[in-house]
């Protein structure tokens, strides 16, 4: 067998081990991404062999947990992709306004910035008090940070600019209280957010959502897994419900592209057909 094949095989075995021991299933994630993250962990620990990583994963829970952090990329921002949020204000809010109660699901919310961004828009549009936001991720460490809603001043500067560029006209800092070098998001924006641990690959549907936002999660999945998760999202939405994806994500390779109309093609906002 060629060397190349055996290193591929070792990564597959590592992912099998990880799944069977801890229940986290990375077997259908982008392999180039997984390889890169494993190599980076090997560089940091000085372990030069994937097979040794595998046995360490099986025998050392702390190490396995570190690897989980490596594989789950929690990079996020408030008002990331300003045009997306502009379009939410323009095209989605009028739809949401027609419902007496609103349920929104952020699938793969990482450290919460996206859920807080939508909370701000809902507040400004007078919809927050009749909304429940379900914000989920399979990374508990990220969820714990999300719940706190604490952001460094350096981040705050970036976010304030993003907010303005996304069409925000209020004073962004009013949504926070400041403590030394960081901002803490107001309780009035936190109160209707439910944070929950949920794995898109292995857990089941969330019922009756008016909107699902799942951005920059599916790009890490292979085509088959994308299709499987799109099924879950589709079944969790009410007819007429809205799906928001990342700017580089699409329904193109899935069985669901015909089951939505395009609310904003460029900004990846879709509406489930009745």
């Amino acid at each position: 067998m060629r060397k190349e094949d055996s290193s591929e095989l070792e990564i597959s075995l590592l992912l099998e081990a990880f799944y069977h021991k801890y229940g986290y299933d990375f077997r259908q994630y982008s392999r180039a991404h997984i390889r890169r993250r494993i190599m980076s962990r090997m560089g940091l620990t000085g372990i030069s062999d994937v097979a040794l990583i595998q046995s360490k994963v099986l025998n050392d829970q702390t190490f396995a947990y570190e690897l989980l952090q490596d594989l789950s990329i929690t990079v996020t921002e408030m008002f990331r992709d300003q045009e997306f949020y502009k379009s939410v204000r323009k095209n989605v809010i009028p739809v949401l306004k027609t419902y007496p109660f609103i349920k929104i699901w952020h699938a793969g919310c990482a450290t919460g910035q996206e859920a807080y961004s939508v909370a701000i828009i809902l507040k400004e549009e007078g919809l927050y008090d009749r909304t429940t936001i379900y914000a989920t991720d399979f990374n508990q460490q990220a969820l714990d940070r999300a719940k706190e809603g604490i952001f460094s001043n350096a981040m705050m500067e970036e976010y304030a600019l993003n907010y303005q560029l996304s069409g925000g006209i209020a004073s962004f800092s009013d949504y926070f209280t400041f403590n030394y070098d960081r901002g803490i998001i107001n309780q009035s924006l936190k109160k209707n957010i439910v944070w929950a641990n949920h794995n898109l690959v292995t857990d089941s549907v969330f019922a009756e959502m008016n909107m699902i936002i799942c951005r920059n999660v599916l790009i890490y999945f292979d085509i088959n897994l994308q299709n499987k998760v799109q099924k879950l999202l589709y079944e969790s939405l009410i007819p007429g419900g809205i799906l928001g994806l990342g700017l580089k994500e699409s329904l193109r390779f899935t069985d669901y592209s015909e089951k939505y109309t395009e609310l904003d093609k460029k900004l990846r906002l879709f509406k489930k057909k009745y």
Partner: protein
Amino acid sequence: MRYEAIVIGVSSGGLKALRLIFSALPSGFATPIIVVQHIGPRSENSWIKLLNESCIIPIKEADEKEKVATGIYVAPSNYHLLIEKDRTFSLTVDERVNFARPSIDVLFESAAETYKEKLIGIILTGANNDGTKGVKRIKECGGLVIVQNPATAESSYMPASAIAAVQPDHIMELDQIGQLLIKITLSANI
């Protein structure tokens, strides 16, 4: 065909450099070219249109899961671009690497793993050391490395850093690079 893909990394001064190389390539140029050009996170992709005007081969942003085929692909701003073993593109929003997203190292390393000795890696003008690890990996996997002559590059740092890390197969001027690409990809076809 000996070479299956060409990857190019370029930073400051990139548009001019890429224009010079791409305008030399004929319409039948069959080897896929994949480019990381450093651009700001808030920048539009209008530079791609500019580039399109000066070359015959179609240029587009790489889409996730798209198959690598003939033509020129560029990494979208704010995403890393990787190449899977099945010759499709992946995009990620991982942390910046060398302060850059897209990062040249990320593209080059994944391309090297996939194409092995059938890859050409090219480092052009730039003011940082992104791409240096990438060319190292390409060499380790048996690929070919071309670096723009730092002495005449708009920014010498990036090519100089690559040259300090590996022994490139060619160090040359921009207008020679296009000619070389035609020569090696054509001669392999015969």
